[in-house]
């Protein structure tokens, strides 16, 4: 009886908050996605499937594809840079290791807007990269990098690289070295031991890191907005436009629901793979 009472008191705040300010808003955006757009912003309470039909328009499928492929490339680049990094770090002298790890965490705690702004400083036409290049090669005309898909890609990798490194490090640091020694004793070359022992054992870290990079980048709004200059559209920007300028809330809601769907499918696949890995 007493336990029941305590449990209720402890559970009430979280359940109240999640139901009122998380589940209800999700229901609300779901309902909005089936409504008609009002003449001056707002919505008309008429049921329609029009918003979802529009998602299959070639224009929006193209934007969706761009967002997904950009996020996949970003994840791959982060993995390529992050894996050797984490691998080396996990074998580093413990004392200095923590300092190096701290240095990875610092950018992670820094304001995202500022980290993105830093790239404007570097990539703009009068920016640092062009000054550097023109000092080296006086004849080289300035590169126009800002407001291109490449700038967005660089900004995303920069923003989310720590999210890849940290779980990879956690997985590689726990790796049982005696397994590697066993593989080598049994005649495996270092390369073979790496691909057949290290990589499979660090798979949970690879998966977790990939999830942590893919999810925020597929729906990214700030990086494409600031480094892409709004010239190239990504799904996050299209959603923002529906709410801030185009005032088509129902269509924006349908787009958000699709984005959430992609992310949830990814998450479910992730947990499936993880479970199969354990059994």
């Amino acid at each position: 009886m007493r336990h029941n009472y305590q449990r209720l008191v402890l559970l009430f705040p979280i359940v109240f908050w999640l139901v009122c300010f998380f589940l209800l808003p999700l229901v609300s955006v779901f309902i909005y996605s089936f409504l008609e757009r009002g003449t001056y912003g707002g919505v008309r309470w008429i049921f329609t499937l029009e918003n979802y039909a529009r998602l299959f328009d070639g224009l929006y499928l193209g934007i969706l594809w761009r967002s997904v492929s950009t996020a996949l490339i970003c994840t791959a680049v982060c993995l390529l840079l992050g894996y050797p990094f984490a691998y080396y770090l996990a074998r580093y002298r413990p004392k200095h290791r923590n300092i190096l790890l701290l240095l990875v965490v610092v950018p992670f705690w820094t304001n995202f807007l500022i980290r993105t702004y830093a790239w404007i400083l570097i990539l703009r036409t009068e920016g640092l990269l062009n000054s550097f290049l023109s000092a080296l090669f006086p004849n080289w005309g300035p590169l126009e990098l800002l407001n291109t898909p490449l700038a967005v890609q660089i900004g995303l990798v920069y923003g989310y690289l720590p999210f890849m490194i940290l779980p990879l490090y956690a997985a590689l640091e726990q790796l049982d070295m005696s397994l590697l020694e066993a593989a080598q004793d049994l005649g495996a070359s270092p390369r073979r031991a790496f691909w057949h022992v290290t990589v499979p054992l660090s798979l949970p870290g690879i998966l977790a890191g990939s999830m942590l990079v893919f999810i925020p980048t597929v729906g990214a709004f700030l990086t494409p907005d600031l480094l892409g200059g709004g010239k190239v559209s990504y799904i996050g920007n299209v959603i923002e436009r529906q709410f801030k300028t185009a005032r088509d809330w129902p269509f924006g809601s349908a787009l958000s629901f699709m984005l959430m769907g992609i992310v949830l499918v990814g998450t479910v696949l992730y947990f499936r793979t993880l479970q199969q890995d354990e059994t």
Partner: protein
Amino acid sequence: MKRILEANIGLVFFFLYVPILAVVVFSFNSGEQISVWEGFTFSWYAKLFEDAALWRACRNSLIVAGVATAVSTFIGTTAALAIERYRFRFRTALTRCLYLPVIIPDIVLAIALLTFYVQTPIPLGLASVIIAHCVFNVAYVTIVVRARLQGYDNTLEEAARDLGANEWQTFWRITFPLIAPGIIGGALLAFTLSIDDFVVTFFTAGVGYTTLSVHIYSQLKFGITPKLNAISTMLLANSIVFILLFLWFQGGATNSQSRDA
């Protein structure tokens, strides 16, 4: 092979730090251009003190982050205690649900809350931002406090109760001091996330309720001045202080745990 690994370490650190260092260096640049070096000056920092809009934005950010941290630390801690202590019917559903605000893209959370707010009497102002920040903060605080509770020794509480302490005394004198590093760590994380958040704030704040992130964003969109370098450097210094605080509390936690063992 080792060479390649070392080169990669250098490359990653170069990539991570050159942009940040560039911002810091150019905050002392006397020119009007944001990225062309002309000479050393502190004048951009002096100008920050005259910028009333910036200070209003700072004040709003501190109010939002302060209240959101307090509320979400309370909710997150009680949730973590309930999940770790009790078995109940919707336990798995609740823990899964708690990961959702972390998993779904922040723009989806932002517009979900926006469409919700316009149908309720809650006006778009600072309160709406605070409520919104609590949604993702609660999830992070719960995760951090739960991690602390998992390495927790139950026998100490039983001993206290055997010695005649009531539940309330047991909580404040045994449980709370033991999980305090987790709670403080969660609170610091919540505060940082709240101060840094742009997307959720951008959609849920009313007109005239500018926070620091929204202020910086509008400067980035409508005219970058070298003052921005100085603002960024100040914020960077702030985050470094916060990491050190976070690590200090977490480090204290692991030390006391290893002493117990």
